[in-house]
């Protein structure tokens, strides 16, 4: 289906509408704690009612059927606000588009409108302790038993699982096939018996992720997304949406590791005039600014009808590397104040949290190494490494806890 890109006048009218809607509807403060989910659902419902949910999604599932240029306009305008949409990002950015691409008409029309209108929260159940970058080596298994698949296993690093109503689950349905061939993607009811969600405390001390355990969980046969044993195709489709989704994410308005914060830090430490510190700050600014400009350029290309595709990997990789540079600069400026501070010194605490959270950007959503491979293979067209496990039945491989 071809979608009109939108003339400059049409886009401007759309922008004016978005701007005035946000001004009157964006919540004044970010809800927290027990208020988060009810408020987030309320805001998503308001977006849906206003016609700003699923801007590029087809109209038969409740979307607006508009081009990515319209989505870009909305994202540009919304970036000025802090709004509680993050419980929906996995559903809106990854699971929903995949169900839309590969789901049956019944799946599309029963799940997608509820997602857009804020009734359901989704999570993605891919990563396992033994299957990170090599997702296709996952061990969670689903065995057909009459009219249902019975699932056993464990997922990890699952964002939003603590709130989720549904999950897109990737499980092994045929271990006698090669590892990419015996997988199936399911829609899992997160409230079904046998699903256990436990918070996972990460190295920053917070628990934004979860572990999810499956103990004889029954999934009806009509909950397969796409075909049985074609789950890898579905996963590739979803990871493609994930890249676009991450690439389009804009950083929060202020971070303790951004240039402006580190200039303030240098001034407070009385080292802002030191030639070596000035050079470090200038170098950091340059890297921060060129990445920003690259993101602007990608957005302008999207507006002109050329979405960035795999080039989103450049933004993700550069962002992760920028954080490392910023950590180095922060330590050079604040020296031992980076590692010990008075109780109540919130800035030092925030800086420490920034330092301790940074490794996440180099790992989550595809490691730096995987991003390098994506750039090398999909953009530059370099050959893949030979994959020694590609043509061997999964049952015979050394993966996770399985020793072939």
């Amino acid at each position, binding site marked *: 289906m071809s979608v009109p890109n939108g003339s400059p006048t049409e886009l401007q009218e759309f922008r004016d509408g978005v701007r005035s809607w946000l001004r009157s509807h964006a919540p004044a403060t970010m809800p927290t704690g027990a208020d988060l989910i009810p408020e987030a659902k309320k805001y998503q419902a308001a977006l849906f009612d206003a016609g700003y949910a699923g801007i590029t999604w087809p109209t038969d599932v409740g979307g607006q059927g508009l081009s990515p240029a319209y989505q870009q306009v909305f994202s540009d305008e919304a970036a000025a606000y802090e709004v509680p949409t993050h419980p929906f990002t996995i559903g809106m950015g990854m699971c929903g588009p995949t169900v839309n691409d590969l789901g049956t008409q019944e799946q599309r029309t029963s799940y997608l409108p509820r997602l857009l209108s804020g009734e359901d929260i989704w999570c993605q159940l891919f990563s396992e302790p033994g299957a990170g970058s090599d997702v296709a080596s996952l061990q969670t298994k689903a065995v057909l038993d009459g009219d249902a698949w019975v699932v056993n296993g464990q997922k990890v690093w699952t964002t939003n699982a603590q709130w989720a109503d549904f999950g897109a689950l990737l499980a092994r349905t045929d271990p006698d096939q090669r590892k990419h061939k015996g997988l199936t993607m399911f829609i899992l009811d997160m409230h079904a018996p046998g699903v256990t969600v436990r918070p996972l405390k990460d190295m920053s001390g917070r628990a934004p992720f979860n572990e999810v355990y499956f103990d004889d969980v029954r999934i009806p046969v009509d909950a397969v997304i796409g075909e049985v044993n074609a789950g890898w195709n579905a996963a590739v489709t979803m990871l493609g949406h994930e890249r676009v989704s991450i690439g389009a994410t804009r950083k929060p308005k202020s971070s303790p590791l951004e240039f402006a914060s580190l*200039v303030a830090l*240098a001034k407070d430490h009385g080292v*802002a005039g030191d*030639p070596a510190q*000035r*050079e470090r*700050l*200038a*170098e950091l*600014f*340059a*890297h921060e*600014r*060129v*990445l920003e*400009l*690259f993101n*602007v*350029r990608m957005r*302008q*290309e999207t507006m*002109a009808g050329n979405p960035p595709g795999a*080039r989103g990997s*450049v933004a993700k*990789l*550069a962002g992760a590397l920028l954080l490392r540079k910023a950590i180095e600069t922060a330590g050079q400026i604040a020296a031992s104040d980076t590692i010990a501070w008075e109780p109540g010194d919130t800035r030092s605490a925030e800086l420490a949290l920034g330092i301790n959270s940074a490794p996440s950007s180099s790992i989550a959503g595809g490691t730096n*190494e995987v*991003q*390098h*491979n994506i*750039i*090398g*293979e999909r*953009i*530059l*067209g*370099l*050959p*893949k*490494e*030979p994959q020694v496990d590609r043509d061997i039945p999964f049952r015979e491989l050394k993966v996770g806890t399985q020793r072939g």
Partner: protein
Amino acid sequence: MQLVLDPEQQELRSAVRKFLADQAPSARVRAAMESADGFDRELWRRMATELGLLGLAVGEQYDGAGAGHVERAIVQEELGRALAPSPFLGSAVLATDTLLALDDEAARADLLPRMVAGELIAAVAVAEGSGAWDRTGGATTASRSGDSWALDGTKTAVVAGDVADVLLVLASTPGQDGGSSSPGWFRVDASASGVTRTTLTTLDPTRRLAKIAFAGAPATALTSSDAAAALDLVADLAAVALAAEQIGGLERSLEMATDYAKVRVQFGRQIGSYQAVKHGLADIYSDWEQGLSALRYASWAADHARDELPLAAALVATYVGPAYFRAGTLNVQYHGGIGYTWEHDAHLYYKRAKSTELLFGSPAQHRARLADRLGV
């Protein structure tokens, strides 16, 4: 802010790329760099007359195309890709911008049309000693005798200084009535008595630089309301043009290394399949995407947001130079032994990368200037 080329600009790029692919292939580049002039005069003539490239950022009243710095940056990118030796940076960038930045209408009307037509080459002489640009005019002095001026001193690293017909020189002028000296711009005929030019031996064989000594050389003062401010503008525009050249060379280095990594087989596999090589190439690609975005921004600012130009120029100078040299280094590296031969072109990019990284100051100086402009 406009960071995407419009269809006309894309067409310009294709036309220049095709022209240079036909007219400045490696063999012609090497012949030009080894020739007496160090550049291909026939190529230069055709760039001026057939393609009209020398006056893209010059107004129509001086026979220019009245386009802008985005367009000129496109030409510089392509010249950087092809490595075609030419006086473009010296004459169509530095000297052209200097004339436009000064307030000497007579000099503009006299020189610019001939420069645009490729009939006259001009060069800008500012740097002394280590090559850094001194806003005061440095140790070169201008002395007045009646209506005429004479210059004494030595300028170095003059881009296209070896082949220029006219030199635009920044010199220190004596203060009025015993006041302090101030910088002033002067026009000197390169063949005048008292002008001694030495073609320097350069790291980069595709770009010649000259040392020019003035010993009582006759000069004409160029009218200027603020000589130092004009220099700042010229330096910023030159930084943008140089970054364009670097981005073009960076892109070509990446292409060469990538193409080779796809065909070179060692240990039974194409070397581009090894992550050590693949990831290095991905890093260069990432540098190129970001550097190109910064370049588009800086050239847009040169045309449409002059108040943003000083920061944008310092930004590209800081980021793009080192990025090009990384690419130039890895291009030689990934070619291995063949990349280290004189016969292969990889070294030409490596040398151009290093020479452009340092042409207008060291990376540390660029970072310090960026910090100044950020108010840090």
